[in-house]
Every structure is written in C-alpha cells, then in structure tokens.
C-alpha cells in the first residue's frame, strides 16, 4: 500500500476514537509507574513498616501499577463497547486469582493435616 494511503488510514483510525494514546498519556503512565516502583523499594530496603504491612503495601503498589499500565500503556479505557478486551481480561484474572489463592489455601491446609 502506498505511503500516503497508510497515512490516510492512520487519520481514519484516529477519527473514530480508535487512537493508541498520546505522548502525554504514555509519559503520565511512565512517571506513575516509576513512583509505584520506587515506593515499594524504599519500604523494603529501609524496613519502614512491619512485615505484614510491608507485604500488603507492596502488593497494593503492584496492583496499582498494573492498573496504571492497563490504562496509560494498553489503553483499556479507550475501548468501545462491547468491551471484549476487558471481559476476557477479567475472565483471565478470575482464573489466576482462583489458582493462586486456591493453591496457597489448600497447601496451607495440607501442612496442618500433616
């Protein structure tokens, strides 16, 4: 396909709210991700909180960074309905949470029985 055609394609693309973000949104996501990476590092290296509080805090930071990258890097909020991307992601996460929490739970019970 000719180059000008490709360009026309891209403007057609953006014309329907089908954009893939702007420099601003990528930069905001990048800065937020850096902050959400530095906070847990500082918490862990300086032993600022009790062990349980640290674990909870760094897990919250990880999940927040996940959400930040979904929104600012992967543009999940810009999806038009029906939101198949979001639905399939939620489906995947339900399986992951079930597998991870379920494994930990059942193996902890196993330890008690033994």
């Amino acid at each position, binding site marked *: 396909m000719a180059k000008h055609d490709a360009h026309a394609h*891209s403007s057609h693309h953006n014309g329907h709210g089908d954009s893939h973000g702007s420099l601003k949104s990528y930069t905001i996501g990048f800065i937020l991700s850096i902050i959400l990476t530095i906070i847990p590092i500082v918490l862990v290296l300086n032993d600022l909180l009790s062990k349980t509080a*640290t674990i909870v805090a760094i897990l919250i930071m*990880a999940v927040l960074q996940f959400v930040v990258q979904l929104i600012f890097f992967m543009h999940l909020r810009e999806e038009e309905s029906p939101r198949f991307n979001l639905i399939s992601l939620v489906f995947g996460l339900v399986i992951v949470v079930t*597998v991870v929490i379920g494994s930990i739970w059942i193996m902890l019970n196993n330890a008690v029985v033994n």
Partner: protein
Amino acid sequence: MAYVAKPAEAHGNGHHDEHHDHESVKVFGFWLFIITDVILFGTLFAVFAVLRGNTAGGPLFADMIELPGIILSTFILLTSSYTSGIAVLQMNKGNVKGLIGWLAITALLGASFIYLEVNEFIHLVHEGAAITTSAAWSAFFTLVGTHGLHVSIGLVWMVGLMLQLKRQGITPVTKRKVTIISLYWHFLDVIWIFVFTFVYLMGVM
C-alpha cells in the same frame, strides 16, 4: 484501545475497511493469547507461592538475591515499555524512521535486561543455587526463566519486524504487527512488576 472487531463502517473504499476489520480481529486474537499467557504465569506464580519456603537446607532467597541489579533491570524493562509506546506514536504519525528507531531502542533495552538476567542466573548457579538445588529454586528459575524466555522471543520478533518495516514501510499489516508487539511488550512489563514484587522484594524480606 478498541482492538476489538467492529462492524464495517460505511465510508471510503469497502475493501479497505474489510481489511481494517480483519486486522483488528487479529489484534483481538492476540489479546486472547495474552490472556492465556496471564493464566500460564498465574500457575507459575501459584507454584512459586507454594514452594518458596521449601529450600531443602539449601541457600535462601534472602541470602542470594542481589537487589541493586534487579532494581536496575526493573527500570530498564519499564523504560522499554515506554519506548515501545513511543514507537506506536511514531507509527500513528506515519514516521517509519522514528518507528524503527524507537523499536531499536526498545530492543536494546530488552537485550540489556536479558544480559543482566543471564548474568544473575550464572552468578546464582556458581553460588550453589541451581534449578536442581531445591523446590524453591526450581520454582524460582521456572517462573523468572519463563518470563526471560518471553522477553527473548519478543526480541527476535522485534528485530524481524524492524527488517520488514524497512522493506515494506507502514501498511495495515505491519501496523497491526507493531500494535501487537507493543501490546506484548507492555504485557511482559506487567508480568515483571509481579515477579519483582513476589519473587525479589518479598524474597529479601
């Protein structure tokens, strides 16, 4: 994002739109692959969570993990996720040179990440923590190694795509491929956030 298939919109030339829709279905198909990969990593995280304490009298994570190098890798991968986003922006502007340039920077950052990871693994094995040492280290190498393998495959793929972009320029097909690889790259960074938190930060505590 709207990576999803949409009903054909009536404007311009029909063939063009059909093509466009076809490409967005492929992007959605790749999104579904990513979801299955999320489940793959979920099971590896579950294995790691269950086995992390089973060190069989061997070395402990807390004694072996050297956080400064891992922090460096984390920032390298995060930056590469950002630069792959800029590559997509260059593509949307129709700038092939900028697109290839930012993809090259992304690939270089990815290669540095892999270099640091391979060095870390060699170091660990020399210090007596190999994949056969204990269940905990098996889980460690499987989880971290699977992520590293994904990044390595992404690198080969990215180099191939840069060559194709050089020959063919920005077409609906190469556009879809760039969209997909940047999606893949962001996904690898997301997985790394959890590897970094669960394996490394919680490992040194």
